[in-house]
């Protein structure tokens, strides 16, 4: 019947629209909230990526595989990722997990999204979306054996002199000249310098700038420590001129029994301490010689990882430029400054001299293994100009934790743990 049909169709569009609108709004609500949640998840993912990579760098590192870094790491890492995530994904919770070997950080970022619209449709009040990232540091194979040569002082306590642990010292039987020269530095410290056969004659007068520079260059001369200088070292320690490693309980646990007498080059009030409170460069750059050094090491986490990177970088640029830096001085702020240089004489057991008043506690050589094997008596300095290329080895630095034993024997075998002999190799990586 026409009448009935007509009457029944009255307002059909309004009803239809009302129903459709309800569905549309409902779908829109879900779409908005879901999009929001997805967006938050992506944000959380991005935040966890940034956080994990950042956290990895906050971990103080020893490069001793499996060696614990200490409880400080977890808190620091968590604090760091929290602060980063606070900006990158506000409101999200984070859980940072450090792997047992401290080479991996897993970061989980949990974002909570409010269901502003879909809630009216009966959805839950919030959506939880999470994302996680894993960042991992890959160590060169050799680095896991490296003994740290300088660490910061996490507790803020003054560095401890370790003179009491110095064992009795026997003068070296070799090398060459058994008659040492005694050089007295400006600060009154005495070092005994032994002239090397076949190298430049040594004049240890510290008033002679050229000689001082010569000694500082660490090229021609060898410094040795006899019983007297051990005594002087003890005096220097007492007077704050020589610092040793701080208590390392928090960051760099050393193998049991290790006597790691990392010596600082200077100390509170030392002329080596710059006006800015940072250590000055140990070594003035000899003119015409490229120098690898870094003074911006006031990051407490900046330990050997960073140092080795910088060394490598410097060596790379050096390698590329064709010039040879013969000095590589470095420091860690708030910790004993240390340095090392290219030992260009022929004996791998020769320490390098850094300063006329500094006892050398690191034995450093940079050499090419293959070339060394071929001719042990070569001038190692030459090997540093090995042709570059990805993967090629450009040198190695050996750090020896000082123990008087090494001075006695001059034998690397005597430096095996517990005295800590470790090798850091450099490769051209890009």
């Amino acid at each position, binding site marked *: 019947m*026409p*009448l009935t049909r*007509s009457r029944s169709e*009255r307002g059909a*569009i*309004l009803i239809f*629209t009302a129903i459709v*609108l309800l569905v*549309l*709004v409902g779908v*829109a609500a879900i*779409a*908005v909230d879901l*999009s929001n949640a997805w*967006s938050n998840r*992506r*944000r959380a993912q*991005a935040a966890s*990526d*940034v956080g994990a*990579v*950042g*956290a990895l*760098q*906050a971990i103080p590192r020893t490069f001793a595989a499996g060696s614990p870094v200490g409880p400080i790491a977890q808190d620091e890492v968590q604090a*760091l990722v929290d*602060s*980063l995530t*606070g*900006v*990158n994904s506000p409101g999200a919770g984070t859980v940072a997990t450090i792997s047992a070997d401290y080479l991996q950080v897993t970061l989980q970022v949990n974002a909570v999204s409010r269901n502003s619209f879909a809630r009216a449709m009966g959805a839950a009040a919030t959506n939880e979306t999470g994302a996680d990232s894993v960042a991992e540091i890959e160590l060169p194979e050799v680095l896991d054996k490296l003994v740290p040569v300088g660490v910061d002082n996490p507790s803020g306590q003054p560095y401890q002199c370790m003179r009491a642990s110095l064992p009795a010292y026997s003068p070296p039987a070799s090398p060459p000249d058994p008659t040492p020269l005694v050089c007295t530095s400006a600060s009154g410290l005495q070092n005994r310098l032994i002239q090397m056969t076949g190298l430049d004659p040594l004049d240890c007068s510290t008033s002679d700038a050229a000689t001082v520079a010569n000694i500082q260059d660490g090229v021609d001369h060898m410094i040795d420590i006899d019983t007297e200088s051990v005594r002087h070292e003890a005096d220097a320690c007492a007077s704050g001129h020589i610092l040793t490693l701080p208590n390392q309980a928090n960051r760099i646990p050393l193998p049991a029994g290790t006597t790691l007498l990392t010596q600082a080059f200077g100390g509170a009030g030392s002329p080596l301490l710059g006006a*800015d*409170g*940072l250590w000055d460069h140990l070594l003035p750059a000899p003119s015409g010689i490229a120098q690898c050094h*870094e003074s*911006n090491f*006031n*990051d407490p*986490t*900046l330990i050997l990882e*960073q140092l080795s*990177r*910088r060394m490598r*970088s*410097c060596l790379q*640029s050096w390698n590329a430029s064709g010039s040879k830096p013969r000095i590589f001085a470095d420091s860690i*702020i708030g910790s004993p400054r240390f340095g090392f240089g290219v030992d260009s004489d022929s004996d791998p057991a020769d320490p390098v001299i850094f300063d006329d008043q500094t006892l050398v506690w690191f034995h450093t050589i940079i050499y090419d293994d293959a070339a060394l094997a071929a001719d042990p008596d070569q001038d190692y300095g030459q090997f540093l100009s090995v042709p570059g290329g990805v993967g090629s080895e450009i040198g190695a630095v050996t750090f020896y934790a000082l123990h008087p034993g090494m001075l006695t024997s001059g034998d690397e075998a005597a430096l095996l743990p517990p005295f800590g002999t470790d090798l850091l190799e450099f490769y051209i990586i890009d």
Partner: protein
Amino acid sequence: MVELPHASEEVLVSRRRREQGVASVEAALVLPFLMLLLFGIVEFSQAYALQNELRGVAHGAARYAATTGGTLNSTQIAGFVCDDLEASKFAGVRVDVSRSPQDPGTADPVGSRGSIGRAIVWMELPSITGFFDYSSITVSHTVDFVVEQPLDAATTWWPDSYGGGGSSGGFACP
């Protein structure tokens, strides 16, 4: 007793005539809301999409800055970031890389390894349908990051503050 009007031909015709155009009127009433909904969806989607894109750009800038820390200054970093952007899509976008307020503020200059930098990317929200004026609304994304790159001869550091969020400040992509 009221007698219901008999459904004569006349009444039917007149009623049919009266109801002519009702659909159009109803449609006219409903259409604005539907269109508003539709345009709203379009505009919001676009804003979301832009926000997402800016996040990508900001993270890209952060990544770039983190791995070139100290060797490039803020302007250089922003310049490289801008180079990778599609100019038509990101008209008026501004990029800034600076010291994050979260940086511990040690003596370390920002840009050195371990310091915390902040990358901000922002631009005014454009209206894709042309019906809205968002000139006062800014879409932005901020990323804090830890600088990774070791420094060898770093001489350029990032500024302590940024101009994020406004029509000035930062680096305007060409």
